[in-house]
């Protein structure tokens, strides 16, 4: 949209209280790798490929469901320069999951690296390696594959108990009970109930029922999935890859190829975006196969079309919410029933589904009864996987639509309805204890929740007036406001673990090694900020290296909004522990007790001021001068959260809707968030701004479309456009002062919370504008117009 009618520029944020308290943390420092990336220095996987690498291309299925009868590589192999063609007969038949998750994985092991069956258009059939990319591509086209076509299941509404069974094969299994019933096309199922929902609904004077259908969405990280592999001097397999989770990748490859994990090293260089899309093994197994077969380095970079057709999407979900309330709007019962489409394989099937409830239902914690349940079903579409928001965005879209319907029904300002029913600081929700990610949850008291402040500030920024939520700006053109609130988590409690090692170097600086995975979010920077703050040094004194299974300590990876909270806590613990060791060593040198050492301004002093030693001088002493006392001073610490404190966000949107064309534009999107102490306010804000735009994309434009035979129609950036700079009027993000006692320097997560609200807030604004509740996403002009027309017909 070309919108020149921008609201007046807003004043800068009030300075956060936290900025005053800290020296490095809560400051807007530039990303450590920023300038290098802008200048385009070689940094991403495909910039670092060894010169003699083989190029790998994959033969992919042209059918949505088929059995491979034969594969004939003769013509491909006859091309000079083609080195090998590998098929399902070349890999051990071990069921795995491609989902990078904890061990044991909550995803079913229902997938083989290569299989005799193909279950979606784009499923991997064979691996071709050649001396050049052009040759590999040509050879892939010459591999003759004979298929027995099978009738696919494409509509997830008809997948359950369909006579066509997508996974009839023996050997596939769940790792622990997740409701896996492949004979019924069920990848996972779950049910929970607190209180008696039916009874409470029956007793509620006001009832509301809303069903929304959120579509699959593509991540569209600008860097396509890429990996290369080689055998190192010690005969070990090294894979350099654009992954969000090096350790899970190593573990899954070890399982798939029946290799000891000690034989594998995974290195993550810079990544060009992830959003959950790189939390899986999509390319690594295939380069590994070629390198193991040929002994030569091998490189595979997916084309954009392959990223669309054959990596993962967001889970399509149908979310039905029923609310029971009193006439004053007091909420009594919530029932959320969900059907989720996992596509051909069950990666993240159970967990994304559970998060639809576990990270939304606690928002309204004062109900007497709450229920959540449903199924995750298989279809012959590309698999769904992890994607920022991870079920919460789908669940919230249903819940916040129902909340607004309730507000309309009882005639209360939707803001007040939420304020009267929502979670507050010091409270809890039974849902936290009952629902985890694939397992039971963890009981948690909310120690930081500034939703009230977020709402108050958001109202101010958008100019919320309940009596005037809609106005006509031109004939048939309406401007209307809507809102929604959201929560997320900060890592998966008792499952996610991160570690950090910090070591003093000569010159008085520190090496910080973390397993945590920076996918462009700036985690290397914020983790260095945490270390610098605690060690009382400048950012420049911390040299950070991350994500290498040989050289950095363990970390589960970057997902579930975990890095700041989980990995950040590990860094803080390591820095504290190192500081204590430094003080102890200096105390011994000075012949005083550690408690008599004061450390400030990079200098150690005795409390009486008689002796002092700079950190720089001490670093040389301990490494070069102190004879038999010489030692490396380092500390390694780990952190695993016993809770997952949610960040919160209040969103207010002003949209413009043209009732003649059905076009909806976002004029202004206001989001005020409580992320605890933002370790780097700018980076936290940009995370939220980026999440909002991705959520707006889901609400209005982005759709994964298929032909009737199951071919993806939206397989490039022309047919699947992502929002450009001109598509949205203005986005305003502010952070409120908040401090999470369990987080590093008071921090919670910021990575996912931004994406959650747009589909709900925009739908609510359209409802306020037109009286029509749109439930089919995305809200394309065609759909909006059809819904408006249908409502008109019904009315007359």
């Amino acid at each position, binding site marked *: 949209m070309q919108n020149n009618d921008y609201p007046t520029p807003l004043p800068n944020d009030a300075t956060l209280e936290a900025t005053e308290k800290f020296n490095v943390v809560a400051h807007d420092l530039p990303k450590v790798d920023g300038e290098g990336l802008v200048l385009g220095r070689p940094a991403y996987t495909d910039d670092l490929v060894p010169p003699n690498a083989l190029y790998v291309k994959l033969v992919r299925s042209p059918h949505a469901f088929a059995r491979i009868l034969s594969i004939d590589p003769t013509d491909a192999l006859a091309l000079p320069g083609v080195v090998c063609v590998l098929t399902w007969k070349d890999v051990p038949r071990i069921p795995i999951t491609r989902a990078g998750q904890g061990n044991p994985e909550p995803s079913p092991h229902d997938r083989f690296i290569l299989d005799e069956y193909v279950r979606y258009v784009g499923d991997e059939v064979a691996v071709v390696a050649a001396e050049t990319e052009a040759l590999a591509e040509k050879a892939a086209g010459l591999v003759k594959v004979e298929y027995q076509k099978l009738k696919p299941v494409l509509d997830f509404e008809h997948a359950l108990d369909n006579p066509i069974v997508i996974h009839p094969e023996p050997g596939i299994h769940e790792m622990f009970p997740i409701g896996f019933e492949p004979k019924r096309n069920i990848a996972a199922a779950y049910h929970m109930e607190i209180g008696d929902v039916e009874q409470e609904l029956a007793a509620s004077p006001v009832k509301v029922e809303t069903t929304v259908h959120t579509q699959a969405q593509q991540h569209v990280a600008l860097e*396509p999935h890429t990996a290369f592999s080689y055998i190192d001097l010690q005969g070990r397999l090294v894979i350099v890859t654009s992954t969000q989770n090096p350790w899970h990748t190593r573990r899954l490859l070890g399982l798939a190829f029946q290799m000891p994990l000690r034989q594998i090293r995974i290195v993550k260089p810079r990544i060009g*975006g992830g959003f959950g899309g790189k939390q899986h093994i999509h390319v690594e197994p295939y380069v590994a196969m070629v390198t193991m077969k040929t002994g030569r380095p091998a490189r595979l970079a997916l084309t954009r079309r392959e990223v669309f057709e054959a990596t993962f999407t967001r889970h399509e979900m149908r979310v039905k919410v029923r609310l029971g309330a009193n006439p004053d709007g007091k909420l009594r019962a919530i029932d959320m029933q969900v059907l989720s489409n996992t596509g051909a394989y069950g990666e993240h099937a159970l967990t994304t589904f559970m998060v639809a409830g576990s990270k939304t239902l606690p928002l309204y914690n004062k109900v007497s009864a709450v229920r959540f349940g449903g199924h995750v079903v298989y279809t012959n579409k590309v698999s769904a996987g992890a994607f920022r928001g991870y079920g919460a965005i789908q669940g919230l879209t249903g819940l916040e639509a129902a909340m607004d319907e309730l507000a309309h029904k009882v005639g209360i300002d939707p803001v007040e309805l939420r304020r009267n029913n929502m979670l507050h600081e010091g409270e809890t929700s039974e849902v936290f204890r009952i629902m985890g990610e694939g397992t039971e949850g963890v009981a948690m008291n909310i120690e930081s929740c500034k939703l009230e402040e977020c709402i108050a500030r958001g109202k101010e920024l958008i100019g919320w007036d309940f009596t005037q939520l809609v106005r006509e700006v031109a004939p048939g053109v309406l401007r209307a406001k809507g809102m929604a609130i959201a929560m997320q988590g900060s890592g998966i409690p008792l499952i996610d673990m991160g570690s950090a090692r910090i070591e003093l170097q000569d010159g008085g600086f520190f090496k910080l090694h973390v397993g945590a995975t920076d996918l*462009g979010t700036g985690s290397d920077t914020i983790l260095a900020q945490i270390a610098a703050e605690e060690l009382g040094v400048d950012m420049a004194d911390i040299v950070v290296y991350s994500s290498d299974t040989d050289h950095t300590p363990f970390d589960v990876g970057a997902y579930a909004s975990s890095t700041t909270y989980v990995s950040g806590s590990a860094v803080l613990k390591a820095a504290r522990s190192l500081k204590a060791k430094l003080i102890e060593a200096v105390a011994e040198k000075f012949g005083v007790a550690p408690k008599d050492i004061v450390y400030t301004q990079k200098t150690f002093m005795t409390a009486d001021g008689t002796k002092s030693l700079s950190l720089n001088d001490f670093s040389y002493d301990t490494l070069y001068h102190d004879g038999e006392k010489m030692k490396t001073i380092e500390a390694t610490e780990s952190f695993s959260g016993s809770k997952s404190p949610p960040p919160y966000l209040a969103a207010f949107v002003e949209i413009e809707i043209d009732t003649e064309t059905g076009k909806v534009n976002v004029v202004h999107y206001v989001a005020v968030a409580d992320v605890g102490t933002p370790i780097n306010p700018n980076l936290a804000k940009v995370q939220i701004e980026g999440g909002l735009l991705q959520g707006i994309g889901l609400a209005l434009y982005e759709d994964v479309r298929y032909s009737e035979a199951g071919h993806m129609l939206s397989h490039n950036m022309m047919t699947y456009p992502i929002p450009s700079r001109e598509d949205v009027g203005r986005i305003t993000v502010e952070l409120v002062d908040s401090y999470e006692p369990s987080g590093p320097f008071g921090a919670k997560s910021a990575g996912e919370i931004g994406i959650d609200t747009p589909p709900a807030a925009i739908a609510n604004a359209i409802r306020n504008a037109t009286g029509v509740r749109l439930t089919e996403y995305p809200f394309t002009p065609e759909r909006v117009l059809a819904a408006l027309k249908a409502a008109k017909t019904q009315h007359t």
Partner: protein
Amino acid sequence: MNITLRINGKLESIECLPGEMLTEVLRRAGHFEVKKGCDTGNCGACTVLVDGKPVLSCSYLAVRAEGKEVTTIQGLADEAKKFAAFLTAEGADQCGFCAPGFALTVLAMKDEFSSIPDEAQIRHYLAGNLCRCSGYEGQIRAIKKYLEAQHAE
């Protein structure tokens, strides 16, 4: 076949296939600052300047560059560093994959406009440079501050 062109001021003769796009040829010649994002001329990550004008090198046949002057972000490194300071100050660099192509387009815009473009002009000029991380707001803040600073110089 071979093509002869100037890359960042240096005369080079490089090999290419008849149907090959400029992105491939530049990357093979070691210009990793030219990124491959979408293969269809939509994302702008592959932007280079040909005779001073931004083009999408993934949709520009390499043979067309014969005898031309091709500039990547590395060819304007000093100016790019100035802009990078503003971009990183806003935290809007994020994953950085779009950054070289995007920054190059910002520098081209600066040279094309005689006065400071307004926000709508900035958004329009850069509409072909997509970013999936930042939501664009921080980038817009950075561009405005950069242009104002350059204008003041």
